[in-house]
């Protein structure tokens, strides 16, 4: 059974590219337009990996990660940040919040798939 990835980003074109790349590799992709939408969808569905942006309206990526880690069912689900932010300070904040990895945009589809396969198989 194909694994499900929750892609959270306020940019429609970025979500489209993430979904296109991951679906071609055989994954199901659920899309969310911001952190709050991501949190709602994570509660509704069983997700194997969360891929989230940082800078989004309503709820940002770090807040989403903290909220997900607060849910019993998401304590061990891998969460990767996919963001334009590349500072060490932001990475440290992401790690402290519970992120398992940090990917700086733009992403290369092949490398994204390699990372996802490494994290969830």
């Amino acid at each position, binding site marked *: 059974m194909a694994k499900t990835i929750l892609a959270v*980003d306020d*940019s*429609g*074109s*970025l979500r*489209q*590219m993430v979904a*296109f*790349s991951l679906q071609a590799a055989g994954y199901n992709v659920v899309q969310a337009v911001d952190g709050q939408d991501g949190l709602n969808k994570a509660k509704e569905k069983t997700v194997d990996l969360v891929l989230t942006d*940082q*800078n989004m309206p309503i709820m*940002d990526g770090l807040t989403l990660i903290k909220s997900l880690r607060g849910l019993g069912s998401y304590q061990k689900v891998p969460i990767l940040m996919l*963001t*334009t*932010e*590349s*500072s060490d300070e*932001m*990475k440290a904040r992401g*790690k402290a919040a519970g*992120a*398992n*990895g*940090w*990917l*700086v*945009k*733009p*992403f*290369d*589809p*092949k*490398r994204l798939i390699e*990372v996802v396969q*490494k*994290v969830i198989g």
Partner: protein
Amino acid sequence: MTRQNDSPVPELGRLLSALCENGSQHLSRVESDLMQTMFLLNEAIEKIGQHFTAIHQAVSEQQAEFELLLAQMVLPAQLKDSEQISALRDLREVIGDEVNSAVVGLQFHDLTSQLISRTINRSNGLRDLLLTFKAHGDGISAAHEAEEMVRLLGEMGESLKHCSADPAGESCHSVQQRHLGCGEIELF
């Protein structure tokens, strides 16, 4: 002529008001143009993305059909190993690499739309400041007492301080990419 009429302060106040009004009008037009640019970019990228994925799907299906056809056909041995067949198979890899590069390139929209949004926010903040200053300028035009002037100038200073703070949630350096090569990856 009274002392009040000799004072340049009312004239300075009116000048400040006019300058602020003029500046805020220009900023409104800048914001409007940026919004329109963002709207067109969104439309264009959405359509390009849709067509791109449709083309990719069609090419993938075409390749799969070709492979199926090739498997079903009884070809002479020399044709099966021919350069043409090999070149057609190599094409799959070339297409894959090109698709990869296109996906990286199409992400420019995500980066630029963040920059445009931030510019609109900053322009909006500056316009609000100018409108606040305009109101203060109108007050200066009417102020006659030094104490009143000091109070108005103090309020202007506070408005400036408030406006100088970064808009909430905005990092100054969140989009630093200079080219569309793929970014670094770090697993914790």
